[in-house]
């Protein structure tokens, strides 16, 4: 069974209670989330699944503090995400969240090293930045590729750079949006292995948003969304 929604005495890394999100696009009102509640404990591996338009991307944006919920409460690592200014949200994303995207989203003009350094720059880290970035790249097995630009790296390697970038500020959660979607199956499973290793070695909480049943199969818990609601939860509590 899943933990209770309302009263966990331990501090959960994610506590979303009855979260809704409504977009108003001109005349049309879109109810992207219609009351979603989710609690995630530190070190869990979660997969969020659902067809297009089910609200899973919106949910991921809320979980990643990229967007504020319309109603309901959401707290990430003990910090309530509501009525926060843009700058405060930026700081929370910088410290608590590591994003991994389907299209990698690396800066093309920058080397792998410089891409990984970027979150630390925005965090105002000045000393030891390069060393930390190199350590993160070594952790994803790219110690010999630090001065390569994204166009000189394979898709799998690019995704590793993105993982190093997500890791480098030691976030509470890593949010991976279809991380294997643009990769062949071999590199895809390597990336998954890498993320699971990081979960084992560092205790990093992983949240996948995916269509891929292989990704979902390796998660500890699967959450299915449909029309902005959780319709199914499969898995065991860690």
């Amino acid at each position: 069974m899943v933990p209770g929604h309302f009263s966990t005495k331990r501090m959960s890394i994610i506590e979303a209670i009855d979260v809704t999100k409504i977009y108003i696009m001109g005349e049309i009102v879109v109810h992207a989330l219609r009351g979603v509640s989710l609690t995630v404990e530190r070190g869990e591996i979660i997969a969020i699944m659902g067809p297009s338009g089910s609200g899973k991307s919106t949910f991921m944006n809320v979980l990643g503090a990229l967007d504020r919920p319309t109603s309901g409460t959401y707290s990430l690592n003990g910090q309530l995400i509501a009525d926060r200014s843009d700058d405060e949200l930026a700081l929370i994303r910088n410290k608590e969240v590591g994003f991994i995207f389907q299209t990698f989203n690396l800066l093309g003009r920058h080397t792998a090293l410089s891409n990984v350094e970027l979150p630390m720059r925005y965090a105002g880290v000045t000393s030891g930045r390069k060393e930390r970035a190199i350590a993160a790249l070594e952790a994803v097995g790219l110690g010999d590729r630090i001065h390569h630009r994204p166009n000189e790296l394979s898709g799998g390697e690019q995704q590793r750079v993105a993982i190093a970038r997500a890791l480098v500020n030691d976030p509470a959660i890593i949010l991976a949006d279809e991380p294997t979607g643009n990769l062949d199956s071999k590199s895809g499973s390597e990336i998954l292995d890498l993320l699971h290793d990081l979960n084992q070695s560092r205790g990093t909480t992983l949240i996948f948003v995916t269509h891929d049943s292989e990704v979902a199969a390796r998660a500890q818990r699967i959450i299915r969304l449909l029309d902005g609601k959780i319709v199914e939860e499969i898995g065991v509590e860690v």
Partner: protein
Amino acid sequence: MNLFQALLEALDSLSSNKLRSGLTILGIVIGVGAVIAMLAIGRGAEETITGSINSIGTNLLFVFRGGSDEVRNPDPLTLSDANAINDPFSAPSVVNVAPFISGDIELTFASERAFIHGLGVTSNYDEIRNLKLAEGRFIDEAHLLGRSAVVVLGADTVETLFGRTVGVIGETVRIDGQPFRVIGVAEPMGGSGFSNPDKQVYFPLTTGQIRLIRRRSDRVDAIIAQAISADAVGQAQEEIASILRIRHRTSIGVDDFTIFTQQDFLETARTITNVFTIFLGGVAAISLLVGGIGIMNIMFVSVTERTREIGLRKAIGARNRDILFQFLAESSLLSMLGGVIGIIFGWGLSSLVGAIASASDVDLAPKVSLDAIILATVFSAAVGLFFGLYPAKRASDLEPVEALRYE
């Protein structure tokens, strides 16, 4: 992100699209270059004009007949007026006085003919106007007393009439048909403000009165007075004015004469050149403005192109001001680069104008001044900031979710 990093990153991003950055910079280069060149030309023109006014002599005063429009029938200036001004007791600040008459005359030698400005002068005219003779001597007291038919020719006049500049002493020229003996040739003085002394001829005042210009009794057209020093010009002006007021019996405040000092000429010339400079600079500033709009345009394109990058940067923790700063750094860098190249370009342009001017014998030396450089630098940086601000603000205000989704 510190300033140095931001500039470095901006440079990196600008150099990734060199042609576009180059063309954008070109707008600023032309604008700044035009401002620099126009200000330099204006400054050069001012220096030429003030220089030629200064060559008149800094301690001279020019007295003319007629005052304000309210004065009807002003008394003419006379030789007696000149003598009164020359009195050291009533005008202690005045050391030298030269009255003269002037008119257009016809000068002929053999089949050559010239219509020029003739001056009937006293023997101290050369001294007061700092007129040097290349050959011969100037008109003296004996010539004045004897109403001699002698003439001193300006440098250009000699050239026009004889086709040579030496060996003309003793030749006889005809002025309005009457024979005059050439006794001196003036050194070239260079063109100056109102009348070019190189194109003039000088004859004795007395001779001119009777035979050429024909002034009744002892009337003169103007009086030049020399103050003891440049500092005494104001004092001398007061003294001359009070002498003439008494002599002409004018009511208080309605002088029937006008005294110009070199300072007045300078003032007038400065006003004119300033208007000229502001006009040219203003036209140039418009092109700088157009350059700034070019920067704004390109920054909008750049923001749109990099929407996803902005979204990504925000996702990993960039605050709005980090993004604002990033784009402002780019636009400022564009305009600063443009400014630096523009200063060099403007410098080159004004040297070119100077070269053309000296090749065509125009006395104009454009001068690039430090304040023009500072002005252009500050202005171009301000243009970059101003026109970069709106695109940068738009970038920083992007919603991270929408920016990331942008295709």
